[in-house]
């Protein structure tokens, strides 16, 4: 459950990046966040994992008010949230296995537990045969699948994806959408920021549209 009440985020410039946003996203929802470049999509997602603090308003994630969260509590919030980026953010010097294991190790998970889960997560994205490769030896689509495996290996309540297919072609994008849908089917709330309207035509879901930081439409899909 994600709730925003009159949230405004200003970086100090003339106009705020996000303005007076009030949104409710129930657990298990699948939501597209769309809008032109600079509309505030990234800012919106970043506030959800406490990378930015709202200037005004309240944000509740899983009934926890994260508006004034103490920095020592941020790690525990992030353990419930998987994040996927356009540029993957993989460690080039580490193997595929290590990249995915990283998320579990960071949470202090036991070693045998780590190897089991990493294998499962990589199998989920179809890359269990690439364990010992380095990210740069793989295609962009494969790298993004590793990043998704890293986000999902911790069984997050929420999955945030910021233009995850921005650098990928249609075929690969569809593969990745399948992964998001599978995660969503298991109960993970998914927020997907994208310019790409074709995605929502293929997989109709709730669409939140931002314009200059304001919420202009919030369409529920008939399919969900």
């Amino acid at each position, binding site marked *: 459950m994600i709730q925003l009440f009159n949230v405004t985020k200003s970086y100090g410039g003339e106009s705020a990046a996000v303005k007076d946003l009030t949104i409710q996203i129930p657990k298990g929802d699948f939501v597209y966040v769309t809008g032109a470049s600079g509309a505030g999509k990234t800012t919106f997602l970043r506030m959800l*994992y*406490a990378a930015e603090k709202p200037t005004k308003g309240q944000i509740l994630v899983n009934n926890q008010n994260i508006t004034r969260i103490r*920095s*020592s509590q*941020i*790690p*525990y*919030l*992030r*353990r419930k949230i998987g*994040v996927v980026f356009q540029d993957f*953010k993989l*460690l080039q*010097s580490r193997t595929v296995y290590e990249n995915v294991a*990283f*998320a579990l*190790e*960071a*949470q*202090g998970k*036991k*070693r045998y537990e780590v190897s089991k889960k990493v294998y499962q997560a990589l199998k989920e994205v179809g890359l269990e045969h690439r364990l010992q490769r380095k990210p740069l030896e793989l295609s962009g689509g494969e790298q993004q699948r590793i990043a998704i495996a*890293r986000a999902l290996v*911790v069984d997050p309540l929420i999955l945030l994806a910021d233009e995850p297919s921005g650098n990928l072609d249609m075929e690969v994008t569809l593969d990745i959408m399948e992964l998001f849908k599978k995660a969503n089917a298991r109960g993970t709330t998914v927020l997907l920021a994208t310019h790409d309207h074709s995605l929502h035509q293929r997989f109709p879901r709730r669409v939140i549209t931002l314009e200059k930081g304001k919420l202009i439409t919030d369409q529920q899909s008939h399919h969900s």
Partner: protein
Amino acid sequence: MLENIRYFFRRAIRNMQQWPLLCSAAILTMAVALATVATFFLVVVNVEQLAANWTREIQVIAYLEDAPTARELPGLFAKLENFPEVEKVKYISPSDAMARFKSRLADEASLLEGVDRNLLPASFELMLKAKFRNQDGIDRVIERLDNTINVEDLRYGQKWLERFNTFVGMLRFISLILGSFLIFAALFIVSNTIKLTLYARRDELEIMALVGATMRFIKIPFLLEGALQGLLGGVVSLGFLAISFHLLIKRSLTSFWLTPTDLNLLFMTPGQQLMLVIAGVMLGILGSLTSLRRFVRF
């Protein structure tokens, strides 16, 4: 817990293997700084030792107007021995003095034949306790002597010893200043070296924070890395010092301005060696801490 510790060590060691150049730069910087500071320390310790050897000979000799009688002597002796500054008292009777004089004259001793054997004055030789072997201590003893017995003449430690002590004090002061300056310089360089390694790994730090690693969890491997580098730096500097010291001793045995017996050079005690290595570890940890503060933030 054990799992975490193993993980931290694995991470720290992997990091060092991954950036061997930066890592060796940090170790070498610390080694050079520690070795330099330790060299200062050794110079001071050895000069101090030399000074202590020389000042051991500082004593006050009081020549008496009249030799005390056999009955007076024990009382006087006790009084002098009770001076808080005095370690040992030796009484030289006129005949003792004459005997010494004779032995010094050796072949010419016959010159003294027929001379009154009480010609030379009786004297007390006062050895001072170590901490009073300076001008101040001598002055105090002289004052006490003046109030106790009839002194005809006094002889005591030469002025140059006083100057030498001033020199040692100054040396100690300069070493302290230079030493702490060096330590700060080392800290600065180490911290910057570690900052470079952190900069090289900023992606990793960012991703760790992103996937929910706690501050502690992010920092500990880097602190450990700093500590390990400091440990190595300390050991390297110790090895370097030990080898140089050994070579110095060997050289000085064959040719040097001081004979080997004079030159009983001191090296660091095992405790001091341990301190040096611990100082390296602290230096590494501090260096990491100061640079981590800049880099790891939520």
